[in-house]
């Protein structure tokens, strides 16, 4: 355990009275509540936390928040909870936290992969493309190694035990960012009475106010943190405000739909996490108006050897100093191109560091800064550049040369020792969310960066996100933005008066941006990093441009610049500038890469929220479900439904159960839960006309009490659904649809009624689940119905096929249909679904003397295939006409127009070589064809590929009733091939010879044809 040598005596949002113990890279450390892993490691003088992606060079802590490109670690060693690519600058510490260095083997400090660095010349931009454009073998050979070396961190090895949630919220004003501008915006809108959500990415409100010297800056006579606390308290007291910390706005979508990602308990030890709260939450916010107060990030400088641990953004160094009470270096060298870095230098010096010098690319420095530097005794190097750095695992010094007029360097080399190199290339507004909102960016020449330009959605940017860098301006602009947003949301508001600011420091002025800072070295010996996470150097980008990748989007992908988990937050602007420089184009013309959602990595778990495991998807169950479950049912999903596929008895195989069930449905009686069939109540004086237009057959003469099978087509003439429709009264029909087609059919029918045939008086209402349905099949079925039902004589001689009637069971009304999908004598009993479970019990009880069996969907499929009935979606696939099914009999020639009619006479649909539905019988009756297998014309597969194919098997079963295997297939000109010998391909064997037959196998058996 080390003693936090870099911890300052006071200051910051940390609680020094408590000690937090954690492990990193197998070593024990301590910190305090309020620390991030980064601040705690820096307190312990640990700068190196990772190794680079490509070259495995040592990597340190570069930023202080989500902008940090490279300080990524693996959190937790528990296989289920481990989290890769966690930014040490964002992860707060807790007792027992374990962090592991990633991308290192065998250890952080000694890593074998570091040899890549010696071969860096062989890993140029486009390495993957170049290597794998060649023969396939290249990829095969390289893949195992690449897979091992690529990627950062390890995925969890066990299911995630934590809970996640998503929540939908609406508000008048959403404020993204809790810095000075965001706080004033939220306060203003909230005081006006608007519903406000304020989202702050870090653990505390305040933004950059937490990174300034509290002894120097005052807001309304309060220290910055005290002012922030007073505003936070005021907001917390209003019930129209939701303040979310540890919550990042990660995506700006259409019509002010903004995604927020809240890390609810990641900062707590697993045992301290509230059991009732999710680990993370996604807030799906729909805001009337949005204020983007997302702040700015500091820009790195691009110079030779700018990647060592201990090289850090100057602003980050100040954040560690003031927010976390940690001095990240004792001897600090500052490398700058703007005024704000000078303020950083003075600040670090007053905070206890010794500033070894300020190197500034600019020659002309403001007199005030020069005199302050002199007061502090800081040596200065204006018009100079750092041309190299030293230090193996931590920067130990840098070399400085004067810039020449021609843009190079000249004169003597000065070596300066340091243990922290604070760099600042100026500040860039955080424009990602603005650009995601599809607003247009403006390239600001003074800023040398992009800032928000023309808005597209209902948003405005405020504070440093809008390139307003002085504190007073940020506060005022925030208040104005809050007032504007609330007013535009319909709540008149006046900007709150901001506190008087004292002691504010100077903003950055005009930075001098040099895309690649000269080092005086030969071009091929310069290693200046643009993107620290992806290990992209200036050389890579220039090579990409040389090779013709002159679109920034292409150059990005070719080099992977900005493609890491940080999405190039600090790297991108330098990449744009370098590419523009190489192309000799203005930067606005080069443009930006696309700022896509999410702005920072969001866990998949948070996206999925509560809709996982038990709650992943609804599984619809029938009123009889409990009975099925307790009677050995094996279920299958049909659409969203869960249907009993077969009822296995103890020790019985699935196949045996299906045989038993199907035989009962043929020879005695069996019952199917048919409740899932779609049902539509159709009513109105034009109901018949409507049915005539939506089905292929005629409905004008169907009398009340009768039912008819119908086939429904799309306008393309292809079969889309089928079912039986019963006439209840002259103007009243009960339509059934397939289980999976119910919703689609109702929408299809409503479409025609609402938009096409608006003159027809027809109303439709779904009654699918109003009715529970028991379908009884088999010669004894009528006896069971007779026993059960009062007010009906189901004797098949008297109660005709395709008729229906009402009856009662113990006084409960039912509707009985005599219809059959098995080819056997069959009845369907419909009862109000509340009675469904009871009906099923009654059926089983009444059927017991006849040996009734429940049968599942597998037996149902087999039974209907024995009769040659089709299943829409199994025999058909959206390319099948009634004629293709050889069901021309159901297409009325006499009646008028119906949906799909004209398409049945299109040149394509009348082709005689279309595939048609036929039966197939294998010559060896014990052989089963595979569904989907190809039907071919030859006994062996011809050598030339592809094999000409006549069609495919759609259904195949082992039928105990027929006493052999049976199959149906769609075969080219199938109707004309009766009796023909064809073959069906199979994997790993010779094609199976089959005979083409009709599809009604029951009739064939009766006729002795099989």
């Amino acid at each position, binding site marked *: 355990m080390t003693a936090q040598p870099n911890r300052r005596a006071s200051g910051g949002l940390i609680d020094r009275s408590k000690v937090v113990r954690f492990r990193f890279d197998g070593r024990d450390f301590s910190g305090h509540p309020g620390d991030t892993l980064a601040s705690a490691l820096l307190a312990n003088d640990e700068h190196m936390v990772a190794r680079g992606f490509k070259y495995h060079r040592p990597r340190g802590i570069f930023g202080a928040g989500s902008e940090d490109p490279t300080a990524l670690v693996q959190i937790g060693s528990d296989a289920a909870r481990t989290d890769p690519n966690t930014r040490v600058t964002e992860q707060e510490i807790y007792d027992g936290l374990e962090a592991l260095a990633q991308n290192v083997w065998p250890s952080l400090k000694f890593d074998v992969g570091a040899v890549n660095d010696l071969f860096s010349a062989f890993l140029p931009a486009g390495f993957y493309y170049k290597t794998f454009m060649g023969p396939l073998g290249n990829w095969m050979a390289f893949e195992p190694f690449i897979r091992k070396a690529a990627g950062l961190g390890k995925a969890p090895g066990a299911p995630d035990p934590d809970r996640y949630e998503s929540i939908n919220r609406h508000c008048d004003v959403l404020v993204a960012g809790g810095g000075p501008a965001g706080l004033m915006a939220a306060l203003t809108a909230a005081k006006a009475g608007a519903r406000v959500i304020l989202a702050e990415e870090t653990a505390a409100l305040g933004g950059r106010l937490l990174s300034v010297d509290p002894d120097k800056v005052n807001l309304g006579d309060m220290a910055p943190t005290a002012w922030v606390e007073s505003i936070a308290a005021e907001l917390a007291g209003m019930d129209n405000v939701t303040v979310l910390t540890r919550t990042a706005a990660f995506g700006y979508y*259409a019509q002010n739909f903004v995604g927020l990602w809240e890390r609810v308990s990641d900062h707590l030890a697993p045992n301290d996490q509230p059991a009732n709260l999710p680990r993370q939450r996604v807030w799906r916010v729909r805001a009337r108006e949005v204020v983007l107060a997302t702040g700015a990030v500091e820009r790195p400088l691009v110079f030779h050897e700018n990647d060592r641990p201990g090289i850090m953004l100057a602003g980050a160094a100040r954040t560690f100093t003031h927010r976390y009470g940690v001095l990240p270096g004792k001897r600090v060298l500052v490398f700058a191109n703007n005024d704000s870095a000078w303020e950083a230098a003075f600040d670090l010096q007053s905070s206890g560091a010794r500033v070894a010098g300020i190197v500034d690319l600019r020659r002309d420095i403001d007199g005030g800064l020069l005199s302050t530097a002199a007061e502090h005794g800081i040596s200065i190097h204006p018009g100079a550049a750092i041309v190299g750095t030293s230090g193996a695992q931590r920067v130990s010094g840098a070399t400085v040369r004067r810039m020449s007029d021609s843009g190079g360097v000249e004169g003597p080399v000065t070596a300066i020792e340091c243990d922290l190199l604070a760099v600042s290339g100026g500040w860039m507004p955080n424009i990602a969310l603005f650009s*995601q909102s599809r607003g*247009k960016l*403006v*390239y600001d020449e003074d800023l040398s960066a992009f800032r928000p330009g023309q808005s*597209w959605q209902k948003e405005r940017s405020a504070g440093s996100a809008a390139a307003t860098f002085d504190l007073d301006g940020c506060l005022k602009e925030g208040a104005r933005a809050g007032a504007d947003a609330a007013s535009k949301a319909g709540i008149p508001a006046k900007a709150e008066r901001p506190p008087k600011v004292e002691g504010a420091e100077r903003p950055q002025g005009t930075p001098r941006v040099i895309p690649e800072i000269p080092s005086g070295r030969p071009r091929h010996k310069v290693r200046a990093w643009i993107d620290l996470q992806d290990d992209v150097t200036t050389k890579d980008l220039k090579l990409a441009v040389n090779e013709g990748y002159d679109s920034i989007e292409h150059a990005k992908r070719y080099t992977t610049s900005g493609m890491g988990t940080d999405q190039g937050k600090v790297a991108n602007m330098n990449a744009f500038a370098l590419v523009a420089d190489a192309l000799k184009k203005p930067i606005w013309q080069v443009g930006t890469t696309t700022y896509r959602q999410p702005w920072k990595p969001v866990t998949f778990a948070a996206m999925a929220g509560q809709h996982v495991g038990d709650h992943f998807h609804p599984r619809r169950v029938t009123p009889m479900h409990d009975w099925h479950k307790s009677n050995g049912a094996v279920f299958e999903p049909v659409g969203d439904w869960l249907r009993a596929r077969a009822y296995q008895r103890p020790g019985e195989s699935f196949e045996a159960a299906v045989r038993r069930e199907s035989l009962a449905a043929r020879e005695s009686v069996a019952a199917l839960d048919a409740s899932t069939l779609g049902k539509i109540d159709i009513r109105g004086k034009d109901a018949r006309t409507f049915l005539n237009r939506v089905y292929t057959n005629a409905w004008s003469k169907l009398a009340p009490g009768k039912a008819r099978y119908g086939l429904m087509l799309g306008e393309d003439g292809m079969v889309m659904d089928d079912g039986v429709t019963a006439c209840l009264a002259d103007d009243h029909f009960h339509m059934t649809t397939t289980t999976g087609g119910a919703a689609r059919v109702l*929408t299809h029918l409503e479409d025609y009624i609402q*938009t096409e045939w608006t003159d027809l008086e027809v109303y439709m209402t779904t009654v699918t689940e109003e009715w529970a349905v028991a379908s009884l099949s088999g010669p004894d079925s009528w006896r069971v119905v007779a026993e059960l039902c009062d007010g009906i004589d189901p004797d098949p001689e008297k109660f005709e096929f395709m008729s229906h009637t009402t009856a009662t069971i113990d006084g409960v009304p039912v509707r009985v249909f005599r219809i059959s999908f098995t080819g056997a004598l069959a009845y369907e009993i419909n009862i109000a679904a509340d009675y469904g479970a009871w009906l099923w019990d009654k059926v089983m009880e009444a059927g017991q003397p006849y040996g009734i069996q429940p049968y599942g969907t597998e037996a149902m499929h087999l039974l209907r295939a024995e009769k040659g009935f089709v299943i829409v979606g199994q025999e058909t696939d959206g390319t099948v006409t009634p004629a293709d099914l050889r069901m021309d009999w159901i297409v009325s020639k006499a009646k008028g127009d119906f949906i799909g009619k004209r*398409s049945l006479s299109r*040149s394509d649909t009348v082709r005689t070589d279309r595939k048609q539905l036929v039966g197939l019988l294998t010559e060896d009756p014990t052989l089963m064809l595979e569904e989907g297998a190809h039907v071919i014309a030859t006994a062996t597969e011809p050598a030339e590929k592809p094999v000409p194919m006549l069609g495919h098997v759609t259904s195949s079963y082992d039928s105990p009733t027929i006493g052999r295997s049976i199959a149906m297939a769609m075969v080219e000109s199938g109707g004309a091939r009766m009796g023909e010998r064809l073959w069906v391909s199979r994997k790993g064997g010779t094609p199976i010879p089959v005979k083409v037959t009709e599809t009604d196998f029951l009739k064939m058996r009766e006729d002795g044809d099989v």
Partner: protein
Amino acid sequence: MFLITCPYCGTRDQSEFSNAGEAHVARPANGEELTDEQWADFVFLRNNPKGLFAERWVHTAGCRRFFNMLRNTATDEILAVYEIGAKPPKVTTVEPATPSGEAPIGSGNDAVKVMRPEEPK
């Protein structure tokens, strides 16, 4: 996700709705008299412009009514909703100059991410 204002239920999230294709495509009453090409034009061919488009939506999770919408497909801006049978209202929108061009703002596409210096700020 858009917000869609159902003419009957008011403004709701897009997840409640389903798109139902191009609007104002009448089903020919005289299908039998049409050539295959004419019929195919009705069944299979729909416009898919970049820019202003009249399309049908149905409020699937709400009132289940179909209605028409004018949407700028280049920017996803919804300009009007109106009932079935009504004529599309006159609207103005930022439209691409050519079928392959870009709307001046709102698409988020490469050509309009950044303002040109001469554009009014």
